[in-house]
């Protein structure tokens, strides 16, 4: 009888056996060594140290993994620590033909034939004491954890609404998801990230941030992200926001827009509102390299062979405002201004240009020359150079 130090190299849950690499055996493992039944499957993790007891030093069928060390034990592993919690199971229920008598309540194997989904077992697993479970629990051969009970709306719940249910690793959701209070799973929304308000019925991702109730200065961003080019690629292209809208149906498509933006004030938005910008492009920030050419907005050709009218930039008249500026380019005293709101007075235009003398900003107006070709005194004349 000898004991070897070893490392778990693979584990077969169906037989509760492991391939182990005995210390000193670099190229070869000892295959299918039985694991002691008091070691839960979750503890037999690849790479863990273990000790192998050779009851017969030369017969590997008479050896076993005696212990596994080097990691915290899985709580409740093996089902041997919570026996008292089973005492309220209704053994006498007619459906429990395979259930062991109370005197043998520790024989957990006898529980294997209980049909959990059976309607009669509505109280099954409603144990008096919260159960703490660590590591994976294999429910069947292909599913790590599956809930088949049809009664409850919550298949997985924390101890309170504020409980954070953590998930480590990738999340693969085959259906639709609702995130946030008041959000509901809807086939029109792949991810409904809604707190209280849902407006639009068909969006891929809806991010409605109304849960921000912070006092003091509050910043709320509906969607925030960044595209950061890093590493050492041969060339890097980075776009902070990349969206497109595609018409891909034989049906009419009256409207197609790459980005639809709107500023709003809600029904309770009674506080003073200083400014609102449908599209706000902040000043560029160059911490290191700066581009040879920088554009605030660069609008490329929007035309097409059968496009009747193409606008590079179209600004509708701005109405119901004290002052209307359809376009204003330059510093505080702009180099170019296009006013609007109503038709200009006779002889005047909405066009204002900056001219090198005071007053600098001058309204472009029309004047009729007299018979001698003179324009009114003080008027200036635009001419081409």
């Amino acid at each position, binding site marked *: 009888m000898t004991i070897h130090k070893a490392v778990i*190299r693979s584990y077969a849950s169906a037989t509760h056996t492991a391939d182990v690499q005995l210390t000193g*055996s670099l190229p070869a493992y000892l295959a299918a060594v039985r694991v002691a039944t008091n070691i839960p499957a979750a503890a037999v993790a690849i790479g863990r140290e273990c000790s192998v007891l050779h009851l017969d030093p030369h017969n590997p069928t008479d050896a076993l993994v005696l212990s596994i060390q080097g990691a915290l034990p899985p709580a409740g592993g093996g089902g041997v620590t919570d026996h008292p919690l089973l005492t309220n199971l209704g053994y006498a229920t007619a459906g429990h033909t395979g259930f062991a008598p109370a005197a043998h309540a520790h024989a957990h194997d006898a529980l294997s034939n209980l049909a959990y989904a059976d309607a009669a077992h509505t109280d099954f697993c409603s144990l008096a004491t919260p159960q703490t479970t660590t590591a994976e629990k294999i429910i069947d051969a292909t599913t790590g954890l599956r809930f088949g009970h049809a009664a409850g709306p919550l298949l997985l719940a924390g101890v309170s609404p504020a409980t954070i249910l953590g998930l480590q690793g990738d999340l693969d959701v085959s259906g639709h998801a609702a995130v946030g209070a008041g959000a509901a799973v809807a086939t029109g929304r792949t991810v409904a990230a809604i707190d209280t308000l849902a407006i639009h019925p068909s969006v891929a991702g809806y991010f409605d941030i109304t849960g921000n109730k912070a006092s003091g200065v509050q910043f709320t961003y509906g969607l925030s992200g960044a595209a950061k080019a890093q590493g050492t690629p041969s060339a890097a292209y980075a776009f902070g926001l990349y969206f497109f809208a595609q018409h891909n149906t034989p049906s009419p498509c009256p409207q197609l827009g790459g980005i639809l933006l709107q500023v709003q004030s809600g029904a309770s938005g009674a506080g003073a509102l200083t400014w609102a910008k449908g599209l706000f492009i902040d000043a560029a920030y160059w911490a290191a390299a700066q581009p040879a050419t920088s554009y605030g907005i660069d609008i490329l050709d929007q035309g097409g062979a059968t496009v009747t009218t193409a606008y590079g930039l179209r600004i509708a008249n701005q109405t119901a405002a004290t002052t209307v500026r359809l376009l204003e380019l330059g510093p505080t005293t702009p180099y170019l201004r296009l006013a609007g709101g109503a038709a200009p007075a006779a002889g005047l235009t909405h066009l204002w240009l900056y001219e090198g003398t005071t007053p600098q900003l001058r309204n472009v107006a029309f004047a009729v020359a007299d018979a001698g070709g003179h324009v009114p005194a003080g008027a200036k004349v635009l001419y081409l150079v």
Partner: protein
Amino acid sequence: MRTLASYLTAEQKKKTRKPYLYVAAVDQIGGIPRLHWQTMYAGADAAGPHALAIPTDGSLNRLRVESNTLYRQRTVTPDYGGPDPNLGKKTVGAIPQTLPAHYKQATKFTLAADTTITTILAYAAAVTGTVSARAVIYADAAGSPAALLATSDELPGIDTTPAWREFTLPTPVDLDPGDYWLGVIVPAGTNLYYDAGSTEQTRFNIDTYADGPSDPFGAPGLSLDREYSIYATRPAFDTWTSFRAATRLCALARYGANLLAFAVDNATPTQIYKAESTDNGASWGAWALLATAAGTITHIAATSATAGDTLVIIAVGATVYRIRRTATVWGALTVWTNTAASITGLAVHHWLDFNCIITGTETTTLHPHVWSCIYGDGYSQALNTWSTLRATAEASAGAGVTFSNPSLTYADTWRAAHREAYSGAAPYDRHALLASPIAADFVDNIWTEPRPFNLDHDYGLALDYTNTHVWATTPNRVYRAPIGQTPLDLSADVLSCVAHDHPLSPQGATIRLTNHDGRYNAPGAGDLLALSRGARIDIAPGYHCPAHPAAHSHGPSYYIDTIDHVSDPTRRELVIHASSAWSLLARWRPGRTYRWPAGSRNYFQLFSAILAKMALEFSCYTSSPKLTDDFPDFAINPGYDPPPYLLHDPTNPRHSTLVDPPPVPDTLDLPAWGNGLAAITTLISHLEDRLMAREDMIYGVWPKADDTPDYALGTDHVILSATYRQRAPADRFLAYGDADLAAEVIDYATVDLLHDRPHVSHDKNMTTAASVTNRATRDAREATINSRADTVTIPVHCGLELWDVVAITDPALGLAAVNRRVTGIVLVYDTQTKPAYHQVLTLGEP
């Protein structure tokens, strides 16, 4: 009992017997000669696929691929290859000078290190027409050419174009460091070339060409300060000839003076081309397409039978194909009948069958493997059929070990090599050498434990052999190791010898040799190479018989542990401590797990496989049915050395060099389940059979209670002294198997004496009532044999062995031909102060 000649049997009973003890050192471990590798060449040739073949003339023919070009090399006298001796002037002198007819000249050069030269080259041209010439080498005496050391074969056809002319020496010439005179003798005017040299560096005199150069050189007629362009060489293994362009892989096969080269085309790597030489590789025929495979060929190997039948094996992905030439007709390229998940290397060598070593990974498990496999030529495998794959070495998938680049040859025995690479935290990439016990067939697939070979090369070793050496090459390395050494007979110098032979005991022998004249001052070197650590010591008791002096019979062999030189004013001795064959197994602590699943090998095959790890071969005289009928689940796990605190203090007197009997080394004196001896002990405990050693072999015998005596002691073969001992062993024997199987055998008569002394064994391999009953019976039988431990001293019986049954007659104690079984033998031989030649036998119940 070994069969003895009648005269030896008669002699050992005589009062006038004359003792003789044969003792020899054999350069072997077990039954396999040790290889002492010599590096013949270490260059910088680029690594790549390569091959080696040695045809009947002993020339070393090598192929290698570099940058998709195939090169070949033929070294006619490879035994004399090695570093350039740097003896002579290799640059062409600027000044020509005519050496007149019937003159000879010699130029002095200095040799820095020992060497052997085979060739002399001189830069020369005929004055007119063509001329013949010979090269000469003279020893130096006091700064002048003196004794003739060698004359080259005549080189005819030297024309008027100045060139290096190569003169071959009829036999290689061994030279020690010193000054030598290199020159030529000519029958007609010949231009030689020189530069300014040291004072009188070249000497000339008149010498008639027809009767050869004078010996000694003779008085110089002329001495000049010139250094002529002439130098001596030996095979250097670094000159290659372009053989074929656009080549990816290569292989060589040989039979007689014939060589077959095979090349996988690089542009179309499905195509195999071949070329042939019928003159030991001196010249080659044109390349011709041999076959086209179904896909890209990744590995190729080839071999020929002595009559010329040739097999080429290739790998296409994970599939092996073969194409065979029978007589002169090539067959079709045909797929094998085995499967593998991948193939990483092929080797093949014909000896009775086409025997292959294949590396790759196993289907399903993906375990890396080195397999042996046979393509039948009608010996162990039916003609033109494939055997199954038999694991020679195995690793576990995921362990980071890969096997590749195998090679195989049958020299003094089967010898193989493969590359083993480990990619773990402390990676290694090395070659392993294996050998098979001499008497084993390839089909037996029993090999020594792989032994690391000090080489890191991506394309493996190529192996071949001559009658005197095993050769191993890579493109930039040439190694050779001598084989076929004769035993070093020490008999005449033996002062005393005590040799122990007990079942499964590492205890061995102490041999004292006289070294009065310093003959054993340098063991392990030169003629004493075999007298070195690890070497085998053969001991054979005998007698000088009338007309048959020095008659003897070989008993068990031992293996040298220590060699002590003892020197004091009264004696100079060499003392050898050697351990038994069982010590080889006790020292083998495998560095890996070995497992033979139930049903894979029977007990006989397990013994063979485990004993072969340490080069011991297994056979049987008699055997129980279980030995061959049962196939247990068996494993040997990696063993560890005992912790230091369990080892004895090195200064302990038990480490004295002259303790008799010799001490069992501490590392063998502690229980260690992870060694080969523990495995053998466990296996034999399952059987009614017993083991014994004879020379390099381990034999099995089945001692039965009704065995008839092999010999009688106490009658005409006297008993010198005796102690007869009864012992009290166990008397109730319980054997437990799997699933609560149990059986019990009770020695009722002994129970009445000893009360209850149970012996309990448990073995899950016992799955039937018959098997547990058999085990209980076996254990009871063991106790019966051990219930006696008589000690009997007799004049040496030359053929007596463990487990023999002897009939003891000792009238003083009323013993008349009672049977006893030999369970231990100590041979004592001493020629010194108290001459002795006897055996101390331990005897049990029969």
